[in-house]
């Protein structure tokens, strides 16, 4: 089913948002620790590169006669796209970290909402029929 791919992306993005929250916690706890430098999470660029590589190699093929689902014609494996932690090289700015925390929370809430819709609500709707 096509939406399985969407769920994979959503799960990756949820992991990234959760990781961001942990890194922000680390930055704030160590905001006054001498020698500690701020860390950050890289994810969106990797995902963008993966999607670009997929698009460039052609359309996803759909096999009608037997094999299930879509044949992914693109290069690269979604499993290899992972969020990663890098060092920003400067003392953490608490204000910036708090803003990042607010963003991560909002992103997480919207992702869980979407995930619920796709994987639970729509399936439930299909099983039960639309209640009038």
């Amino acid at each position, binding site marked *: 089913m096509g939406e399985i791919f969407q769920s994979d992306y959503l799960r990756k993005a949820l992991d990234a948002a959760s*990781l961001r*929250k*942990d890194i922000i*916690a*680390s930055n704030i*706890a160590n905001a*006054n620790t001498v020698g500690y430098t701020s*860390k950050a999470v890289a994810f969106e660029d990797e995902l963008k590169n993966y999607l670009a590589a997929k698009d460039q190699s052609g359309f996803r093929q759909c096999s009608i006669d037997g094999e299930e689902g879509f044949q992914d014609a693109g290069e690269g494996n979604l499993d290899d796209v992972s969020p990663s932690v890098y060092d920003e090289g400067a003392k953490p700015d608490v204000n910036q970290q708090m803003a990042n*925390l607010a963003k991560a929370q909002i992103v997480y809430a919207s992702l869980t909402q979407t995930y619920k819709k796709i994987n*639970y609500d729509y399936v439930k709707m299909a099983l039960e029929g639309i209640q009038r």
Partner: protein
Amino acid sequence: MSFFRAMDIAASGMSVERFQMDLISGNIANAGTTKTKDGDPYRRQFAVRSTIEQPEFSLAGLTGDDEAYASGVELAGVVKDNSEFKYVWDPDHPNAQKKGQWKGYVAMPNINIVEEMSNLMLASRAYEANSSIIEASKNMAMKALDMGRG
């Protein structure tokens, strides 16, 4: 478990900031203490922090990188500030110097109240920032739970 990781880190931050606030209030309370047990005036104390990487803080599961850690913070030690005491002219004071270049002066603690107050505000703000991490972690965990509800 991912949600508790951020909470543990924030808790470590709150403990250290709380301790720092205790030291600061000790400094402020003793800003006028001219003689302690060892004979000298009170010396300013401050906390030295260091990062702590417990196995629970490992990010290997999320990033695939075994070396990735989110760091908590711990108290590495309490250090006495070795800067000079302040000398105030007060020859009638019981603890006034009896001889030497500072005869008639009283040695006062090396504490600047304004600096201590601003450090107190920093520590207090850091404490609040850490506690909002716990709140945020809780919110995100509840949102994740909501996915399976209804």
